[in-house]
């Protein structure tokens, strides 16, 4: 089977298409050469089939089996999942978490990136490096560091409000009322710089001519940032938001470690619940159903979000001929 290169990849995102297909029409390649291409891809394909596709399919099969007899039970496990209050309160908690944390984080990342890219900034390289550093810190270590720093016995700074008469006793960010916000603080620490780096590099790709034209037209620096730069990097903004939404729904490491340090509960997030169902209770069938539902929620959230922002894409989109 030979595929026409021009018509063959239309389903893919346009930049990928543009990058992967040579600009000029290629003469049909010999089958032997096509076979070499397949040969080169095959190690990846084999691993992908074994360690990605197979577990995914197995997950679905497992979710349709009975936890007691391992016989086919249809959608019984899914009915259990949908009736499981703890699971759904975990999902809702993560939705709440994501709504606040992602907005704050991406907002900060945008502000910092725009400022670092603007004319009022000193030490751009230094700050860009410092903010990106948490990317090299494992989530486990980030959670341990912050967990200790948020424990009054280990961090005398948390007693300062008490000495100043602002609080009754030390501030305890890891108690049950505040722990969700403590995790937001940690996750924001971990990933703001990462997102900022993506945005900053996008900004350096904004053509000089556009900025120059705006300047000539008398645009203020603020207007340039808000009306020109931000719309031009909106696709990267959307990309970072989608990655962050996926990340929020998958939250696992930070609550697990904090629960070791301060007992915040072991069913805080859907992922923790899935882990416990499978490995503490040995109910792999129900865990499979829970993870299939979580995957569906994740994809649904991504698609819904993308649908919402796509409709509101600014007028530039039409003019640039980018069709999605």
């Amino acid at each position, binding site marked *: 089977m030979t595929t026409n290169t021009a018509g063959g990849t239309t389903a893919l995102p346009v930049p990928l298409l543009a990058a992967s297909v040579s600009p000029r029409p290629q003469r049909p390649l010999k089958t032997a050469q096509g076979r070499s291409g397949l040969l080169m891809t095959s190690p990846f394909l084999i691993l992908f089939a074994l360690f990605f596709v197979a577990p995914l399919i197995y997950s679905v099969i497992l979710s349709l089996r009975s936890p007691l007899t391992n016989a086919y039970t249809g959608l019984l496990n899914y009915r259990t999942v949908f009736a499981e209050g703890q699971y759904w309160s975990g999902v809702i908690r993560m939705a709440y978490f994501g709504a606040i944390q992602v907005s704050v984080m991406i907002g900060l990342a945008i502000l910092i990136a725009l400022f670092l890219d603007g004319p009022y900034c000193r030490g751009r390289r230094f700050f860009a490096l410092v903010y990106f550093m948490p990317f090299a810190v494992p989530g486990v270590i980030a959670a341990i560091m912050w967990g200790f*720093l948020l424990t009054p016995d280990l961090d005398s700074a948390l007693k300062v409000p008490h000495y100043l008469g602002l609080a009754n006793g030390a501030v305890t960010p890891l108690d049950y009322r505040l722990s969700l916000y403590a995790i937001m603080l940690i996750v924001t620490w971990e990933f703001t710089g990462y997102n900022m780096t993506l945005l900053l590099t996008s900004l350096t790709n904004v053509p000089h001519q556009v900025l120059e034209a705006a300047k000539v037209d008398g645009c203020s620096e603020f207007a340039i940032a808000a009306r020109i730069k931000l719309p031009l990097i909106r696709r990267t903004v959307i990309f970072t938001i989608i990655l962050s939404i996926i990340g929020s729904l998958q939250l696992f490491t930070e609550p697990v470690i904090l629960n070791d340090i301060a007992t915040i509960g072991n069913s805080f997030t859907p992922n923790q619940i899935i882990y416990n169902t499978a490995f503490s209770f040995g109910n792999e069938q129900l865990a499979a159903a829970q993870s299939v539902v979580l995957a569906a929620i994740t994809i649904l959230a991504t698609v819904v979000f993308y649908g919402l922002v796509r409709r509101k894409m600014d007028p530039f989109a039409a003019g640039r001929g980018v069709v999605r």
Partner: protein
Amino acid sequence: MSAVTFSRTRSKAPAYLGSGSRLARRMKTTAGTAALIVAAVYVIAPIYWLIVASSKNIAQLFSTATFLPPTHLSWVSNLKSLFTYEGGDFSWWFLNSVIYATCTAALATSVSTLAGYGLAKYHFGARRTVFGLVVGSLMVPATALVVPLFLLEHDVHLTNTYQGVILPLMVYPFGVYFMSIFAADAVPDTLIDSCRIDGASELHAFWKVGRPILMPGMVTLFLLSFIGTWNNYFLPLVLLGSENRFPLSVGLSAWSSDLMLAGAGQPLYPEVILGSLISVLPMLILFPFLQKYVARGLTLGAIAGE
């Protein structure tokens, strides 16, 4: 192609970008820089604390000022106890992390580079399907894979082995995606053609022409995969049961889960803190040199993923 134009740093803003009076400009610069410094303190504070706290013994941790070094440094005794506790488990974890991260990064980079090059330079039948798979897989959350992966690996006795962790992490769809974009742009078809005229096989042409040109991209992929594996927690936690196979992340979390247990002996606070420092220090020291490679990979992914 614009997708592969990497970060061009505008070190100095052009003169025409200035607006307002000099005083206003100066005030904006000062206020902005102050805000940047506050943000930098938020980022650096925990890392600084980790360094300071790692020099304290358990009594000092609970009695001295949080962000100030103690009068008497306990690094030596902390190091000794870190590396000897329970027969020196920590040294194993460090070694294991090095093994997992190095093998995964090297193998994932090789597999992805070959696949990405194949996809970019050859137009075979399954090509379109493969691209669809790669892009689609970026959307599947890891949770849906890890539990069944454990069960499947358990059946073939891969759990609790090095290869059991390395093999799934070698599947790196982003790497294939990244490399196909990189190769399409960087490797000229004419060079491959001239190799063919010389009678070289396609694989030989890849080795002679493709590989050297793709080297910078491979460095980026290696680093991304290395950092990703070093930082991974969920997958090794599920797949590994015995302590002598743990990477640092899982080992340290096992220690930190003992902190609150009553009757578990002296809590391991100094060991957990120093162990955490040791597991981030190599990467943090190298980071200023590696930053541009890492950022490039992420950015190409983001721009192409738009």
